[in-house]
């Protein structure tokens, strides 16, 4: 298992380097002149030149890349033109919000998606199956931003059940940060009113963001479960008189979970992408909204920072999925170590 973990870790580092090459290339093959953008519209040519030298934009590309890497190693992700603050500080402020949103959505998607997929496989072509198949085809087709707007329209404005957007009501006192995760901090500080308020604000964004993930988890888990339930060891368990519930949860689920796990890992990454839309709709102060606001005002460093953070998270998620694979299926572990 140790060699397996190490080989996966080496792969992670390689991928991270590649990601840096990609973000760097995007920022440097862009036709716009970053120095001119940074200097602002009223800058004289000499001011632009000063900025060009200050940021090393007059150096050859490989020198700039080396500078970029050493900067990153020191935590320097550049500066936001819009907020005039270091991108790293902005990301520190916004990322916990996004992380909370994505984690809640993923937890919700798994908690609903896996049982729904299982039920649907056990009761093929019954109404549960029809409902879950409708969810799974709609989930990936429905535009998240539109679903968000319609939920706001119906749930928040028409029925006034939940807040329209944001993280907290103006009247709620934000808790002193401990973990920087608002919901967790509110609970740790015992501020239950704030905790409830934060949860109410999270419901619609979580539902909107989790929908595509929920859909694909149901789909994969259903297909896999149907496949596994056809295997001989399941027939054997049935012959021995075990209940369907026991067979499904104890014997079938672990095998059906392998492809489902891949989907969960993938979906975690896509959810991070989806936060761009969902946070824009719900005015959720995370890195997605930060990236959009930066992109709209041609503020480039923050977008690269967000791309890096999302890429890194996605890679770590896939790394964890690989580890879980090795745990679920010893054959994979052995094969990867041998290769």
């Amino acid at each position, binding site marked *: 298992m140790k060699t397996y973990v190490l080989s996966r870790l080496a792969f992670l580092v*390689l*991928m991270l380097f*590649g*990601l840096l*090459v*990609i*973000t760097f290339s*995007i*920022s440097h*093959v*862009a*036709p*716009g002149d970053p120095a001119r953008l940074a200097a602002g519209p009223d800058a004289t040519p000499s001011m632009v030149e000063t900025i060009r030298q200050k940021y090393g934009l007059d150096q050859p590309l490989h020198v700039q890349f080396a500078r970029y890497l050493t900067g990153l190693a020191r935590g320097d992700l550049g500066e936001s033109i819009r907020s005039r603050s270091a991108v790293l500080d902005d990301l520190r402020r916004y990322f916990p919000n996004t992380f909370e949103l994505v984690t809640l959505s993923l937890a919700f998607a798994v908690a609903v998606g896996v049982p729904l997929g299982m039920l649907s496989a056990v009761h093929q072509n019954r109404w549960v199956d029809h409902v879950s198949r409708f969810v799974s*085809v*709609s989930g*990936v*087709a*429905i*535009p*998240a*931003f*539109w*679903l968000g*707007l*319609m939920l*706001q*329209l119906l749930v928040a*404005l*028409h029925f006034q059940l939940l807040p329209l957007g944001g993280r907290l009501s103006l009247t709620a006192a934000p808790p002193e940060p401990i973990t920087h995760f608002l919901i967790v901090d509110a609970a740790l500080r015992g501020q239950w009113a704030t905790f409830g308020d934060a949860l109410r604000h999270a419901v619609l964004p979580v539902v909107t963001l989790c929908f595509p993930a929920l859909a694909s988890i149901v*789909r*994969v888990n259903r*297909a*896999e479960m*149907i*496949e596994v339930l056809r295997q001989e060891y399941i027939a054997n368990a049935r012959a021995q008189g075990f209940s369907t519930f026991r067979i499904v949860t104890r014997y079938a689920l672990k095998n059906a979970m392998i*492809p489902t796990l891949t989907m969960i890992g993938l979906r975690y*990454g*896509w959810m*991070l*992408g*989806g936060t*761009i*839309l969902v946070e*824009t*709709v719900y005015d959720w102060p995370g890195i997605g909204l930060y*990236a*959009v606001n*930066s*992109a*709209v005002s*041609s503020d*480039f460093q923050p*977008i*690269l920072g*967000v*791309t890096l953070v*999302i*890429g890194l998270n*996605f890679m770590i998620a*896939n790394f964890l999925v690989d580890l879980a694979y090795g745990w679920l299926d010893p054959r994979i572990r052995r094969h990867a170590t041998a290769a």
Partner: protein
Amino acid sequence: MSTPAAPVRPLAVWLAEHESTTRELRRSIRAFTRSASSVAGLGLVLAFLLLAALGPSIVPYPEDAQGAVHLDRKLSPPSAAHWFGTDEVGNDVFTRVVVGARVSLRIGLVITLVGALIGVPLGVVAGYVEGKIGEAIMRVTDMFLSVPSLVLALAVVGALGPGILNAIIAIALVWWPGYVRLVQGKTLALKQEVYAEAARAMGAGRARIVFVHILPNALSPIIVKASMDMGTAILTAASLGFIGLGAQPPYPEWGAMISIGRNYLPVWWWYSAFPGVFIYLTVLGFNLLGDGLRDVLDPKSRGA
């Protein structure tokens, strides 16, 4: 050689000669039509294509698609004259949504085609050549796949600046890795097949093996993926439009329409509601069609 009277070969002869092909085709069509969701998908896609083809000539107010201004009838609710209501400058939302089908079709086609044209050759090379070149192609592909496409597209549009053309370029640039992955895997498997082996033994060159023996057999999964991608690409472009980085108003693109319509919620709800329904139905159609095609063309990979 079979019939000397070549100019008037009856259909029956042609059918007899191609019996196995037509039998296969009939079987596939039967399998496809047995599934209600596949037929629904095909129906939605055909309706979408019809709208895209005829759209501008059947809509009630063609001039509204280009951004005409009729302030006297702005923001009026859905009625017999304006099925989907009107927007903030009095344009008929129904007209703009229908014309938007052509815009979306064009966007989907360009992105999917460019993605496949870059990805398929790279995938064939990576799968066929293996070694260092194949390894390098796959590593770069993995890196691109390690960031969600919407995020990468956002970064590229951020660099290029907003606009429909830049959005299409950005999405197309991040779209190919999926094809490389798919085709590489397929090529790896196909070149081990006995018939590819036999062709190699008979001295067929690389190009012949790739074009005659591998690509035609890899075509089914590519078609299935392309069908799914049409929907996803349209969705991604609409997302960029919604953020404000894609199509710019008054261009009749669905995402951009929702983006503006959002400012007029909740009172003038029809403005952003209807374009969204069309995005949903279009993407749904291409997904269901892709699913149906996969069940018929490529049954082994079902559920993947």
